[in-house]
């Protein structure tokens, strides 16, 4: 029996604020923490293959609950397991981690690992470098994406389509092609003739060249109601005014998505910072940690790893909804 209408890519959610909240229909989605109230609501299931009627059948209920239980267990082991091991080993003496890695504190704790990692290995310095890099990349990407998206989408110059296609072209060029020439460009930038190596600019500026951001932002701006701009224009507002006071405030959703992508990408970046920041003083965690792996005591090293993971994990737990929505919609919008 054929039930299916022709699936369209457009069935995927359009990027509008209201939709994003319901993209995660779990009851806890609003606050990011599962709520305590048990609202029995079998009808509220959106887009579930198991209908209310199915659910009433005990065999379905039991099998599904069993499967969910196994899935939950698997997720706990694979998702939490490594993190918990890392946290445990960070405060375990190296000797124990080497000889009995799965044992739980057979010889007590080694809190000094954290202390040494922070003070002698200077995890704090590299952590701050990582933060500065992320903030700078975020700023550059925001500036480039919003101004370009606005100009191309709202101001619509004659040469707009040409620029847009030039930008889109870069989407199809894999980043590996850029690696060497970008390195040489940063060594000797065309206008400046002063090497940017060992400066944060070497990481900040190239990060702005993200066609993906511009596509996202432009698409969002395209969907904004034009009447508001017309009204503002007749009120005498110039293009900058409209940009700053009208377009930007209306775009919080997409700016949030771009911000999350920008910060996550910066936090993960490894190869590029490794190439352009050879001076250890300015290296972020992602570059420094592998470099000190072999010259650092194992327990201290794991403590350094744990400290580096702390902030991203905490940020994630606090802003789950934003993270997950961006992640989900990123994939959806690509369709």
């Amino acid at each position, binding site marked *: 029996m054929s039930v299916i209408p022709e699936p369209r890519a457009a069935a995927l959610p359009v990027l509008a604020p209201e939709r994003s909240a319901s993209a995660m229909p779990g009851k806890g989605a609003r606050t990011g923490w599962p709520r305590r109230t048990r609202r029995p609501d079998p009808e509220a299931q959106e887009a579930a293959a198991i209908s209310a009627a199915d659910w009433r059948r005990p065999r379905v209920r039991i099998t599904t609950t069993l499967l969910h239980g196994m899935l939950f267990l698997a997720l706990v082991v694979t998702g939490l397991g490594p993190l918990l091991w890392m946290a445990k080993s960070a405060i375990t003496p190296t000797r124990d981690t080497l000889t009995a890695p799965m044992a739980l504190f057979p010889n007590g704790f080694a809190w000094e690992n954290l202390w040494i990692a922070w003070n*002698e290995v200077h995890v704090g*310095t590299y952590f701050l470098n990582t933060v*500065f890099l992320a903030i700078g990349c975020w700023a550059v990407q925001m500036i480039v994406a919003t101004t370009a998206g606005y100009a191309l989408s709202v101001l619509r110059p004659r040469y707009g389509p040409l620029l847009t296609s030039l930008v889109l072209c870069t989407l199809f060029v894999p980043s590996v092609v850029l690696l060497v020439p970008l390195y040489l460009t940063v060594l000797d930038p065309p206008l400046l003739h*002063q090497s940017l*190596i*060992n400066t944060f600019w070497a990481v900040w500026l190239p990060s702005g060249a993200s066609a993906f951001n511009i596509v996202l932002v432009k698409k969002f701006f395209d969907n904004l109601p034009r009447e508001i701009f017309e009204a503002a224009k007749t009120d005498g507002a110039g293009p900058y005014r409209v940009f700053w006071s009208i377009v930007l405030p209306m775009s919080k959703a997409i700016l949030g998505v771009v911000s999350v992508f920008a910060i996550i990408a910066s936090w993960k970046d490894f190869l590029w910072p490794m190439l352009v920041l050879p*001076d250890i003083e300015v290296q972020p965690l992602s570059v420094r940690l592998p470099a000190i792996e072999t*010259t650092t005591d194992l327990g201290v090293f794991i403590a350094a790893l744990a400290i580096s993971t702390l902030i991203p994990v905490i940020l994630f737990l606090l802003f789950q909804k934003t993270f997950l929505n961006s992640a989900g919609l990123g994939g959806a919008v690509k369709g």
Partner: protein
Amino acid sequence: MMSIHRGALGALSAAATIALVSGCAPAAPSPSDDDPNATRDVDLVVAIDAGLAAPALDSIEKQIAAFEDEYPHIHVKTREYTWTGTTFAAELSGGTLPDVFTVPVTDGKGLIEQGQVADISALVAELPYFDNFNPTVLAAGQNAAGDVLAVPVSIYGQALHYNRELFRQAGLDPDQPPTSWAEVIADAKAISDATGQAGFASMSSANTGGWIVSTMTYTLGGRLQEAKGGAAVSTVNGRETAEALEYLHRMRWDDDSMGANFIYVGKSINQDFAAGKIGMFIKGADNYTQLVQQADVDPDIYGLTTLPVADAKDAGVLGGGTLAAVNSKADADTQAAAVKWIDFFYLQRLVDEDAAVANAKIMVETDQPVGVPQLPIFDKETYDKQQSWIEPYINVPQDQMTHYIDNMFDQTLVNEMPNQTQAIYALLDPVLQAVLTDRNADIQKLLDAANNSAQQLLDRS
């Protein structure tokens, strides 16, 4: 300088400072008389080893302080630097190469030939002990005309490092380390049987595998490259190389005495040795310094002996060394300051009693090793004198290294192969790794393939 306590502002200002300094010209000369020795303020960026632990950094800071006392117009900044062949050109043109940097002897030759280091020969010739340099050693830093463009600051021969504690646990006498390859194999088996740790381990990655293969081949009397009629011929698949790999194969698969981890580089093998996981391994004889500074080794477990050299005609010990060179973009003042630094930091302690004692004192204060066996850069007389000066400060367990110290001058030191050295080492890495990770590795076949590739490389250059 790396100061230990840095807050947020410090990190930012450091970044800003580096951003500014990296492109800046040296400080403007302060007005002074036409005295040619007038002190102009010079900023000197010097290279230090990567990954040093805090006490080692401390000792370097103290030495810098002493240097700046002696030369108040020179301001020294350190930069962590590891020689990497390809980024060298980029670093040179990008301005991130330190003013004074160190380079292994093999790579130094290439730099000198291509004129990619500053010509400091006049300044070096002025050094008071210039005539005492061992001519063979000095040759490593000379160009075709005989000018010294890079200063040799250390030379070493390969040696066998062993864990005395593991020896003890295996029922072996730590004061009777092996003297032949057969004994090495037997001892390795004893250690792994008794303790479960690797009796023997070998570096195998990032070109170090080829380096070790080269070392072992030399001890058996073989060579990896020969000069025939002016052209270089690769002999990587010679009998001795195959024999060396056979020994490793036997230890790995027949005796199971090489443990379970095989991807090692210099730093990681030190780390595992210090952690008590390795019974014996091959590395430069001066490795103890790194073991202390980077791997926090317990001195009691450390033992050093000479490599077992076969009774063959060309058998010898692979030698290496380090050169100190000056950035070719350095101006005259910086070059002068650089040579002063090279003199102070690397050489003074070898030729001048006060400097030797002062340096030894600083090292002892900061728990750095004094007395690690080194081969002489100058003549034997200078060497003996230097040993006597530092004798009261020796804090390394030299009695655990007697087998090396007593025999090191009797061994023939052999140079690395001259052409495409690193590239050929890179070809041998996978061969060594295959021997250690694939029981059925066909050693001769692998060597033959590597030899073909090596010959292609030699023919191209």
